């Protein structure tokens, strides 16, 4: 039945019925003249009543057939537009109306798809921006110099921790939105900004301009300030202020100047006396003996004074030496980096380099130059050894003030000291400008020595350097954690789980020694990366580590029914299909069992924030505390803090670096086993580095925010 035909029929009926009835009434009266006027009236009334009844019936029918479906359409439409985009219209029985409803549904579908696409793109774009912002903040954060970005009105838009350290005053911490003049004296800063503006006006807009100045900050720091303007368009133009702390350099320069001046002045007196006495003795051979003795006495006394001055000057110069201003460099780190750098070369020669290890000890100076030296020492030792032989590198503190790093080869011809005079490979400095640096020259710049030690084991190349105090515990920087958390929040889909929950839950366990604790190393496989987007756990694997050993027979494994389809992209990673999880217990049933397995042990995971964001909210929903009461060790963060130079901390790379074989990658139990073996290695390293308690380990893994963030970003990219 079409809509049109229904209406037509209704109109025809509505029109025809009264006409037919009136006609019928007329005929009736005509055929029966005996009918009185009263009867005629009754007939007419009956006809009228009949007509009224018919019309009402008709109206009701029309309302059923037309108005109600239309009303339903209208309401459905307003639902789609107003509240529920996913709502679809029920199809009325009338074909016209049904087509209309279907058309509206189609339009809604299309609108839905477009807006869905938009959502996806918007999410992607937001994520991209968040990642970029995170990266930018990490970069800013890692810069030693203070960086402040201001808008055209010189209000602070962005600053890094170094800038905040330099510019914040107790009464006025550096805050965005404030004018930069609140922190830097206008009379010093204004001229630089104005000069910059003048130079920009007078030249093409593409030219880069920079103004520099040196100023003393309110906190006493002496800083080199560089200002530049970035952004071409007027409204997006920003001033970037870069502050370099030169306090130490200026202090050193000043004391060096003063030292030189004083040293020369100090020597002038005695040298003048010696010179004149010597000349007199030389020129006048007729001196009476008492005068001769007097001049000889002068010679003797002033030569003594010069010798004493020299000793004093040497002692004073020690404090002015440039290498004393360098950073403490971990010798272990040098050794490990050199080994990693040369791994493939050694492999080509069929050689191995074993690290003999030793307690942590620090040298002071130029890390890169020292690394070149250690690399070159390994290369020299390798050239000396035959194929298939194992070199050993060890280090230790000797004598109290000196450290020694040795690279030993099992045999070889006697080595001459001259091998240390070859120019350093990879020395970036141009030959024309500088003498080529050699192992010896770099080592001497660092107040050290190199030599060859021959004994019945073979030859060892020995590098000896003065011991530096280890890097002092960095001053607490409240910003660091805040920025760290912020970026973590930006990075995660809906935010990674906060990796630094309160630590005051288990004081006894926190102070227990790491070697005495029991650990549960666990790993999850999931349907995807975002629990916030409905992703779910599909399997949990865990294994225990106790007494510093992996206990492979003490494990936990369960598949979990995610109660949702597993996308093919996830199945490709872990191989778990919908069929495999059908009939498996849901997470709510598995979690309590897993909780029991963990109980009494410290939970450990690789990139634990990922796993915890799946588990902890579910635990909370079950009325349980977060895993490990919030004290969870993270092998990624720990490796990152322990081996900052390694650069990549995904499971494979780490296992390879630690000489572990990887089995069953991307099964939760396989990954848990690999992670557990990594943990066992890390526990040894932690012990050596003097990290003894759980609390210290947790502190260490939260410590280096920058590298942690960079690694989180990186790990996220290579996750899977």
């Amino acid at each position, binding site marked *: 039945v079409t809509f049109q035909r229904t209406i037509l029929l209704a109109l025809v009926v509505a029109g025809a019925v009264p006409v037919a009835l009136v006609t019928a009434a007329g005929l009736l009266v005509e055929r029966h003249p005996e009918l009185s006027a009263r009867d005629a009236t009754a007939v007419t009334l009956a006809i009228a009543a009949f007509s009224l009844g018919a019309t009402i019936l008709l109206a009701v029918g029309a309302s059923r057939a037309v108005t109600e479906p239309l009303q339903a359409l209208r309401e459905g439409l307003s639902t789609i537009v107003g509240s529920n985009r996913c709502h679809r219209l029920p199809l009325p029985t009338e074909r016209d109306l049904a087509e209309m409803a279907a058309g509206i549904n189609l339009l809604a579908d299309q609108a839905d798809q477009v807006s869905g696409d938009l959502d996806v793109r918007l999410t992607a774009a937001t994520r991209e921006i968040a990642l970029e912002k995170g990266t930018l903040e990490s970069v800013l954060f890692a810069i030693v110099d203070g960086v402040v970005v201001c808008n055209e009105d010189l209000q602070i838009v962005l600053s890094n921790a170094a800038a905040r350290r330099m510019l914040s005053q107790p009464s006025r911490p550096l805050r965005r939105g404030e004018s930069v003049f609140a922190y830097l004296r206008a009379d010093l800063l204004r001229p630089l900004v104005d000069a910059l503006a003048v130079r920009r006006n007078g030249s093409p807009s593409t030219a880069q301009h920079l103004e520099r100045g040196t100023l003393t900050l309110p906190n006493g720091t002496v800083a080199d300030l560089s200002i530049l303007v970035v952004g071409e368009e007027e409204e997006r133009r920003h001033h970037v202020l870069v502050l370099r702390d030169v306090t130490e350099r200026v202090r050193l320069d000043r004391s060096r100047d003063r030292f030189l001046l004083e040293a020369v002045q100090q020597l002038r007196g005695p040298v003048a006396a010696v010179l004149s006495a010597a000349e007199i003795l030389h020129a006048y051979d007729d001196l009476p003996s008492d005068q001769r003795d007097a001049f000889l006495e002068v010679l003797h006394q002033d030569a003594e004074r010069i010798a004493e001055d020299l000793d004093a000057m040497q002692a004073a110069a020690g404090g002015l030496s440039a290498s004393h201003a360098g950073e403490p460099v971990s010798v272990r780190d040098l050794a490990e980096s050199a080994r990693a750098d040369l791994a493939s070369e050694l492999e080509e020669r069929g050689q191995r380099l074993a690290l*003999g290890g030793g307690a942590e000890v620090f040298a002071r100076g130029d890390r890169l130059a020292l690394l070149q030296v250690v690399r070159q020492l390994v290369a020299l030792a390798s050239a000396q050894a035959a194929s298939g032989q194992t070199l050993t590198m060890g280090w230790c503190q000797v004598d109290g*003030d000196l450290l020694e790093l*040795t690279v030993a080869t099992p045999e070889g011809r006697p080595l*001459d*000291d001259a091998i240390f005079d070859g120019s350093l490979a990879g020395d970036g400095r141009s030959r024309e400008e500088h003498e080529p640096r050699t192992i010896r020259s770099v080592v001497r710049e660092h107040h050290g020595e190199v*030599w060859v030690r021959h004994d019945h084991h073979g030859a060892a190349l020995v590098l*000896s350097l003065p011991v530096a105090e280890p890097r002092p515990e960095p001053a607490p920087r409240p910003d660091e954690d805040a920025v760290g958390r912020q970026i973590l929040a930006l990075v995660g889909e809906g935010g990674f789980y906060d990796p630094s929950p309160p630590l005051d839950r288990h004081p006894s366990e926190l102070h227990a020694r790491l070697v005495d604790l029991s650990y549960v190393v666990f790993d999850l496989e999931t349907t995807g990366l975002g629990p916030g987007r409905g992703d779910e756990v599909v399997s949990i694997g865990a294994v225990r580590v106790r007494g510093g050993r992996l206990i492979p027979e003490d494990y936990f494994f369960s598949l979990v029914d995610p109660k949702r389809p597993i996308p093919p992209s996830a199945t490709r990673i872990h191989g778990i299909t919908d069929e495999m999880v059908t009939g498996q217990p849901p997470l709510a049933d598995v979690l309590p069992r897993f909780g029991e397995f963990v109980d009494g042990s410290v939970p450990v995971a690789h990139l634990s924030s990922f796993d915890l964001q799946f588990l902890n909210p579910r635990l909370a929903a079950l009325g349980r505390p977060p895993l490990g009461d919030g004290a969870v060790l993270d092998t990624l963060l720990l490796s990152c803090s322990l081996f900052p130079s390694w650069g990549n901390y995904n499971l494979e790379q780490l296992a390879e670096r630690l000489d572990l074989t990887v089995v069953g990658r991307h099964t939760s139990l396989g990954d848990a086993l690999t992670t557990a073996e990594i943990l066992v290695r890390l526990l040894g390293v932690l012990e050596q580095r003097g990290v003894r308690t759980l609390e210290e380990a947790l502190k260490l893994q939260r410590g280096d925010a920058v590298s942690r963030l960079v690694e989180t970003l990186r790990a996220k990219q290579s996750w899977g």
Partner: protein
Amino acid sequence: VEKRVLVVEDEANILLSLRFILERQGYQVRSAMTGREGLEQMQREPPDLVILDLMLPDVSGYTVCQQARRDPRLARTPILVLTARAQDAERRKGLELGATDYVTKPFRVAELLTRVAGLLGSRESRVTGHESGTSDPRPSPRDP
């Protein structure tokens, strides 16, 4: 019997003084002004003591030390090193490569003579560094 002292020193003025004070002390003094010449001399006629400057024009004093120690006849000859540099690491290296004792320039005559007498008196046992107090001049780092 007069003790024979070989002085290897490239600065003529210092050599002059050293020769003078040592001879006045009753030692028989020979001298060399380069590392190679010094090595040749000590190998030709092993002295009772060598006074060796580290900064020589041809080969370094360390090399002289090392090569001297490879000659069985010189293996136990005391070597007193004179140096203008006074880093701890340098001292350690010298002692390990065969130096018996160290004197930093400038030195006092009396001090030098005391050291020389000490070294010649205890010829049979290698004397170690006087200041560093090292008991064993070559403790090897942790044997891997």
